[in-house]
């Protein structure tokens, strides 16, 4: 999210990517930044508390880790989710999402006697998969929290500059239409 390129207004950019501390703009690297923010209501987040951001950050990193290609944290996905929930969701849905996050963590405590962030990675993966499996197998009028989370995380990543141009392929102006070319000539899923 290079703010120079984006053309979004400066205040908005700052809200999205960094902090004002004593009048000096601190532009953090995304990875690990929010892990450092612990107290609830920390400046720099729109909606989530420090501990909620910590949990979300770990969940994002687990779902789409940095491998040979960038991951969710490289693309600033936790901040994207914070903004989406804090700015776009209705107050009701914000509360529901926060409650979902809490029950997700409570579930981890129930199953492993430890909060999610303190589990080792294999247990985190196992737990996230089991919660997803339950959600996929349960017919529910409202989409389960974990599926909303996966949607937000995938959207934030796949439509980010990093995600769209690494794991996926992106081109704003293709210039031509080829309806059925060999897949290898494209090579990856189109981001849009």
């Amino acid at each position: 999210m290079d703010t120079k390129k984006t053309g979004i207004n400066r205040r908005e950019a700052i809200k999205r990517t960094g902090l004002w501390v004593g009048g000096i703009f601190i532009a953090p690297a995304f990875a690990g930044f929010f892990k450092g923010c612990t107290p609830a209501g920390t400046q720099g987040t729109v909606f989530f508390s420090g501990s909620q951001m910590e949990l979300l950050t770990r969940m994002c990193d687990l779902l789409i880790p940095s491998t040979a290609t960038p991951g969710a944290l490289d693309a600033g996905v936790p901040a994207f989710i914070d903004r989406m929930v804090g700015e776009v969701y209705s107050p009701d849905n914000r509360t529901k999402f926060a409650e979902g996050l809490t029950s997700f963590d409570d579930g981890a405590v129930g199953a492993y006697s430890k909060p999610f962030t303190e589990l080792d990675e294999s247990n985190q993966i196992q737990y996230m998969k089991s919660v997803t499996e339950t959600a996929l197998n349960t017919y529910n009028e409202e989409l389960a929290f974990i599926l909303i989370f996966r949607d937000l995380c995938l959207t934030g990543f796949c439509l980010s500059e990093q995600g769209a141009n690494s794991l996926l392929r992106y081109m704003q102006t293709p210039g031509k239409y080829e309806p059925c070319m060999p897949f290898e000539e494209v090579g990856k899923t189109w981001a849009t």
Partner: protein
Amino acid sequence: MNLNTKAKQENTYDAIVVGTGISGGWAAKELTEKGLNTLVLERGRDVEHVKDYPTMFKEPWELPNNDKISYEEQQHYEKQLRTGYTVRESTKHWWVKDTDQPYEEVKRFDWIRGYHVGGRSIMWGRQSYRLSPMDFEANAKEGIAVDWPIRYEDLAPWYSHVEKFAGISGEALGLPQLPDSEFLPPMELNCVEEYLRDSMAKKFNRVLTIGRTANLSRAHNGRGPCQYRDLCIRGCPYAGYFSSNSATLPAAKATGNMTLRPHSVVDSVIYDEEKGKAVGVRVIDANTLEVQEYYSKIIFLNASCMNTTLIMMNSRSRRFPEGLGNDSGELGHNVMDHHFRVGANGSIDQFNDRYYWGKRPTGIYIPRYRNIGSDKRNYLRGFGYQGGGSRENWTRGIRELAVGAELKNIISVPGSWTMGLLAFGEVLPDHSNHVKLNFEKRDKWGQPTLVMDCEFKENEYKMRVDMKNDAAEMLEEAGFKNVTTYDDPGAMGLGIHEMGTARMGRDPKTSVLNRWNQVHACKNVFVTDGACMTSAGCQNPSLTYMAMTARAADYAVKELKKGNL
């Protein structure tokens, strides 16, 4: 209002066009090209082609919150948001705020509007189909509403006229129910669409073709070609599709005969009781609220179906106490739209080594086949399908168990090919579907507001059964798997094809406009937007408004020269 003679002269034109959308742009072009000094009024701000498309080059990551507007902002667009696709961060400047532009709903009515130069011609779906001989004859044959005062042959040369300028890409098929346009080369079907086309031809003797669209498959009249970005709704820097801003208004401007006046809310048409005709329009300056009168020999109302109706209803005189041209009592009645949001989707386990390059700005089209020839259903008229084939993208990763590198591997390759069919059906004109004015409740320009009282009726609901089942059947017969259907009619207006409130007809007792789109009893006022429609067909209507406007403008100028207006 006291105007001295000089001011009156300065405010006098040969013609006034109210509105700059699809039809207003055409009225401006045709009238100015025929030499008329023309005032073109637009209630909203000016939008210059390219210069005023602020989001045309924005990348997805440059648009905050996945292009969604904030909850706070959503509160201003309660009705405009009902489509689910219109108001976004990248397009919000094209849509009215419902909080600024209120209307009442006796029954839910989704009135989706854009007030600026170019109107909805910037955001339109660009699908362009001619009505057919069958469509113009249906009302008379079936005894529905009133007969169209024209037939296909009256409009055919004007379809050709506008198509040659606008540029419509598509495939000529020679179908009686969907006459061919003057086509630019068709955009291509993909392998799955071709596969369904072949199956449908063999098993059902039905046609599938590429969507006929006002996107330029090659450069045309100095515009385009399409760059396959599929970002049309933001305004196209390449002029790859037809809009008033990219095509008709520049042509009108080039004549030197156009005066374009944005921020001009038309209050009413001024009717001169002695002369027995209209002499001009009363305009409210949207910024200063100052009222100004403008005069002309002829007036084209192209404010969009509902707003043209509002202006006419608000133009009350001794001669027309119920609104200009409303001797019949039909003004505001017979509201039509298209009903849709019904169809089926399926996937197919073939062509997995194939993918596409570029985002084609049109889908497929399946022309109407119901109630044609020997086919007789338990409802009148019919429907067509739009839709298309594509491969599942990264969103399929949401409903996967996979986590981590495993998930990344899954989403880095596209999923199965899927095919969607979405039906668009004809809505019958029905007198009870109507709008009226609330003179008590006024907007911030002091204008009375509209009250909508419309609904889909029995014929539409019966048709929807076929619209859903046929889609599923055609997909299943072709071997598509996981075929699912949907049916969510929403409400009138959602098709953004409002029509019929000042219908054309042969008899002034039962219609508002004559065969030349003239108000029966006030012949120097022409209405050529959606309000003029006597029936809806199941085809997207904009191309018909273009043709109707060019035809009426030609007639108006000839009559003017003969001294008849």
